[in-house]
């Protein structure tokens, strides 16, 4: 039982905090917001040089073999700076899906490249009719003479337009044509039949919706051997939620710090806002919720390798609780900034929106309380 950071972890945190503080200022964010790519390839290169892209990849595949705690340290720093580089998509999700499902050849072909910053990935899984159900996929993969043919539509593909390859989930048709288990397919950008509707993502970065119309892929586009991919998807998404939780904690801490500062300086009726007991108590509640969120993100990271039930409960619990805290913290930060809070003049708005996006991603708070209840055997939840 030791919740203190190792020396390596402390160093990682310090370097991440420093790099983010020096690089991701409001000026930079404004530029990134207008960039069609949504992030800076030059900075991505620096991430690679700092070893961050190699962090969770196994040493056998050119990585550093780090875990959820290290990812969390980086993500929290990224949250503080509203970093929009596709770290989650490429490293936390993409690389992990390849590591979980891929054949050794597929791992060798992708993971070292990711580690050195030469390959970006995106994950196209959600569909509109699925809402937040990871098990619901209508996109189909039909076997052809020399490979696969994919048809369907995906939404909420993070960083899709910037990805060199998109990992697309599809239901593999059975011999009798009925749809069967899920498979994951590596689809290179620009493959014919692939249509992206790219958009600026709430809170920074890009996203897209994706149409697949008779997308032809070679046989080895399928990750692994055709085992149902859903358990691996659940594993990776549980860990991604832990990472997102840490990012949210960084955002919330920044909102708390900024709001504390603002209420001390801003005067109304001849005295600082922070002289109002109602505002003091509100800020006490905000601080308390930031602390609770921090505990839950840490817990989800520490449970990232537990058995699926415990891991899922920790991940859903964290996502649900942090989502609830995030709403409160974000809404109060805006409220306490008054009229300035509801503009794009201050950074507050950008942080607010990133937290809103956080709550929606991979299922909102209500969804994850329900999943938590179901995983806890409360059957009718």
């Amino acid at each position, binding site marked *: 039982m030791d919740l203190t950071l190792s020396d390596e972890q402390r160093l990682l945190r310090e370097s991440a905090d420093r790099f983010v503080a020096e690089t991701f200022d409001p000026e930079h964010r404004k530029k990134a917001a207008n960039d069609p790519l949504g992030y800076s390839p030059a900075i991505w290169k620096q991430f690679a040089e700092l070893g961050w892209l190699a962090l969770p990849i196994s040493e056998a595949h050119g990585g550093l073999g780090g875990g959820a705690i290290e990812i969390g340290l980086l993500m929290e720093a990224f949250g503080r700076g509203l970093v929009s580089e596709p770290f989650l998509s490429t490293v936390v999700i993409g690389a992990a899906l390849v590591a979980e499902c891929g054949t050794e050849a597929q791992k060798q072909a992708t993971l070292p490249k990711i580690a050195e910053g030469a390959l970006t990935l995106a994950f196209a899984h959600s569909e509109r*009719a699925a809402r937040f159900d990871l098990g619901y996929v209508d996109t189909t993969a039909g076997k052809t003479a020399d490979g696969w043919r994919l048809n369907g539509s995906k939404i909420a593909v993070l960083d899709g337009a910037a990805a060199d390859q998109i990992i697309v989930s599809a239901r593999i048709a059975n011999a009798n044509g009925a749809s069967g288990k899920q498979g994951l397919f590596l689809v290179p950008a620009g493959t014919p039949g692939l249509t992206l509707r790219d958009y600026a993502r709430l809170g920074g970065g890009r996203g897209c919706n994706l149409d697949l119309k008779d997308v032809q892929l070679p046989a080895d586009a399928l990750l692994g051997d055709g085992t149902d991919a859903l358990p691996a998807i659940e594993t990776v998404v549980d860990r991604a939620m832990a990472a997102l939780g840490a990012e949210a904690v960084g955002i919330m801490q920044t909102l708390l710090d900024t709001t504390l500062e603002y209420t001390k300086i801003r005067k109304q009726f001849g005295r600082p806002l922070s002289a109002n007991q109602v505002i003091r108590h509100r800020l006490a509640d905000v601080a308390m919720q930031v602390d609770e969120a921090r505990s839950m993100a840490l817990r989800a990271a520490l449970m990232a390798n537990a058995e699926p039930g415990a891991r899922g409960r920790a991940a859903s619990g964290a996502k649900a609780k942090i989502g609830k805290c995030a709403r409160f913290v974000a809404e109060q930060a805006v*409220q306490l900034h*008054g009229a300035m809070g*509801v503009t794009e003049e201050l950074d507050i708005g950008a942080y607010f929106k990133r937290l809103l996006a956080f709550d929606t991603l991979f299922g909102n708070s209500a969804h994850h309380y329900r999943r938590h209840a179901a995983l806890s055997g409360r059957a009718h939840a």
Partner: protein
Amino acid sequence: MDLTFSAEERAFEQEVRDFIAGSLTPEMKRATALTPSVFSDPDIGMAWQRALHKKGWGAPGWPVEHGGPDWTPAQRWIFEAECARAGVPNVNVMGVKMVGPVIIGFGSPEQQNFYLPRILSGEDYWCQGYSEPGSGSDLASLKTRAVRDGDDYIINGTKIWTTHAHHANRMFALVRTNDGERQQDGISFILIDMKTPGITTRPILTIGGDHEVNQVFFDDVRVPVANRVGEEGKGWTYGKYLLEFERGSGIASAKLREALKTISDLAGSDVTGRAIEDPDIAIRMSEAEVDIDALEMTELRVLSALQTGQNPGAVSSLIKLRVSEIRQAVTRLGVDVIGQDGLAVEPARPFYRLNHEPAIPEELLPVVPEYLNGRAYTIFGGSSEIQRDIIAKMVLGL
């Protein structure tokens, strides 16, 4: 006690429905639905104002001698409810509901004859110059100064959060003409032609990405003294009258019910993956609906008191708080209903005249901006914190 309307009132209801059916164009309706704001763009809103004016309904709250329709409180209720149900555009409230009543109450006959018809017809578009940087909730501390110079005032200073200043040709403003003992005493209420030299506006984008509010700068702006409403130094009184007038006049429940219905329809459709099947969504819809029911009854109690000539009393001051909270709950529900499609930001405006296909279905576009912009409900017009201060003092006598 009963909740039903009389035969005459039912007939009036039908007249309103017929009028709306004949006057509200599909374009107006679509534009209103796709506007993530309580303010319609002027081209849409003023088209509706002209239709209302043609029917003699341009200013429901005004006395008949100034062009009001002479409605009973029940008729106003019916009118507002039907308008909300049909989804009509919003007219220029800063004209019809704000400066109009002040001019009627305190303006000179010349001012009344000049300005009121132009509000009715939609010829003038007004904005409100109240808040300043540093003087938001603490409005009486405002610093924009009007110095007398012959028959003019010379105005210097700045106003902020000025809704539609970039569309308006006129502004009514509170300015400091004197340093009274109490801050409130040196304030005057003045009408300003927005084309006067020395006025510049700077857009401020809202958190939802809309250009709705502005900062307005006054640099030696010369305004005739004749543009002052009422007495010099009494502007605070007129400004407060306006707020009271405004408070009694709105019927929020019908609009909230319509907003909830819009979200509810989305939740029932494939475009959101039938979000309504999520029990959290279904229950929260009932919670919001019940909250609207309670608000409606409170509004009806006020209406009934007005109808019988009574003073509705303190209850009306609780309404603003509830309305803003329910609005936020409904917009929040919208965000949860559209789920991950809410990640897509569409920066172009207006949504009803995009020249490209949006990334997500059109009807989903306003949902997140409405939630984001709606954070202002508990801030603008006296923050919820200020409202609770007022309720504690004025309603509870603490």
